[in-house]
């Protein structure tokens, strides 16, 4: 009887301490500052030049290298975002479409590299910056439709909510945690259905909407 009791207490004690240890030692999914790692891309694509705000000096003297950006809408390049689950990296022909006429920057090292890929008809091996685990299903189209089309919010505000202030970055770097809790925190809020409606809904809270 005594032996049994001692054994049980021993086992229970080991179990509790093991659990506590594991809880202490387990790695959090997300880093302390919620920032993703710096990702080195094959070509250091400057978002600030393309999507960034204009600098009035650039218009005044077009012959000098531009200091500001061109305020290109995110959706001009990331065309799939409004109609697919993936936002998609733009195809090479999107870059070349403009750059083949832009002689002022034709000989710069990054543009030269771009055309090397184009001439070889080889896709640029861009690294994925915003990664989600494979069992998660995220749909860009639904979010753009709800917030840009439905509620009339600006593209910068909507894309920026999850991707941060990309127009001031060169290569993109993850700015928000993208962890489930972070997504759910928005889904639990009630948002207006569209710009004019007083009706509100929250995002789906059914596991299968996002997990596949």
């Amino acid at each position, binding site marked *: 009887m005594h032996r049994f009791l001692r054994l049980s207490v021993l086992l229970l004690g080991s179990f509790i301490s093991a659990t506590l240890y594991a809880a202490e030692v387990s790695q959090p999914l997300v880093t302390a500052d919620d920032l993703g790692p710096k990702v080195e891309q094959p070509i250091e694509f400057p978002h600030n030049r393309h999507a960034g705000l204009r600098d009035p000096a650039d218009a005044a003297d077009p012959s000098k290298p531009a200091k500001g950006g061109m305020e290109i809408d995110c959706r001009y390049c990331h065309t799939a975002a409004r*109609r697919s*689950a993936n936002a998609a990296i733009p195809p090479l022909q999107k870059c070349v479409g403009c750059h083949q006429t832009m002689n002022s920057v034709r000989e710069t090292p990054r543009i030269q590299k771009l055309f090397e890929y184009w001439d070889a008809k080889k896709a640029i091996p861009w690294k994925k910056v915003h990664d989600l*685990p*494979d*069992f998660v*299903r995220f*749909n860009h*189209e*639904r979010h753009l*439709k709800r917030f840009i089309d439905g509620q009339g919010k600006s593209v910068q505000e909507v894309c920026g909510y999850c991707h941060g202030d990309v127009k001031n970055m060169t290569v993109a770097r993850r700015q928000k945690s993208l962890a489930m809790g972070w997504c759910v925190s928005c889904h639990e809020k009630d948002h207006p259905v569209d710009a004019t409606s007083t009706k509100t809904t929250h995002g789906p*809270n*059914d*596991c*299968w*909407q996002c*997990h*596949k």
Partner: protein
Amino acid sequence: MSVTNLLENWSQFRQAHPVGDAPHAEYKWALSIDLDTCTGCNACSVACYAENNLPVVGKEKYDAGQMMHWMRIERYWDEDDREFPDQGAQFLPMMCQHCEAAPCETVCPAGATNHTADGLNSQIYNRCVGSRYCSANCPFKVRYFNWYDYPTTENVWPAEMTQQLNPDVSVRSKGVMEKCTFCVQRLTAAKSTARSEGRLVRDGEVQTACQQACPTNAITFGNLVEPESKIAKQWAAQQVELAREGQAKDEEAGGSDLRGYRIFEELRAYPSVMYLERVRESAI
């Protein structure tokens, strides 16, 4: 509290929809299978393998009962000791019945299986810890456990075969339970398209992989809530109601002359799959 009161509350509780939103408001997915036109060809089963990244386990594991066919075709003989099975065999496609009061949903220690607002029994792989209590509770035995890590097992998906995998469906690793999902990835995509166009999914717009493959059109799938859908009309014509264990038609004297029935209905799981009895001509 009286026993009757307890039973009534329990009955209500069993049928209470776990999801707070209005359940079955827009969609309630259901299936029906006509056993008279099903030929047992297994096309549906293979189509399911292709659509849902099912692993092929090989002979040894199959022998151990570790096969992974979400949709299986059961073959039954008549049990009356005739010299030959002279009225043929009976084929029964069996897959997750997406029970409205699913016995599996209540017992998962990790909350990995739940009921969605559109009437599906969901299986969330990343929550599953592999207790296998759900498959123990399932009366239809349609839940399949990943006893091995198939993505890293030799000859399951060698070399180029990984390119066949459907990116809309997770590839499950070891320790995770899986089952038929009514091709939820197709339903989600269809609902998204419909939502973008400001409407609901039309009848026939989305098909499950099994339904799409079936050469005899034995499988009907659709939205039970939409009264003009083929599935709703079928369930209505067969007088089978979703949340009832004893159908009114079965209480008629002499039984019903309608073919629609559900399997193990007396267990009160309220399956979403209706079967139509196979017919045998009496003149021959």
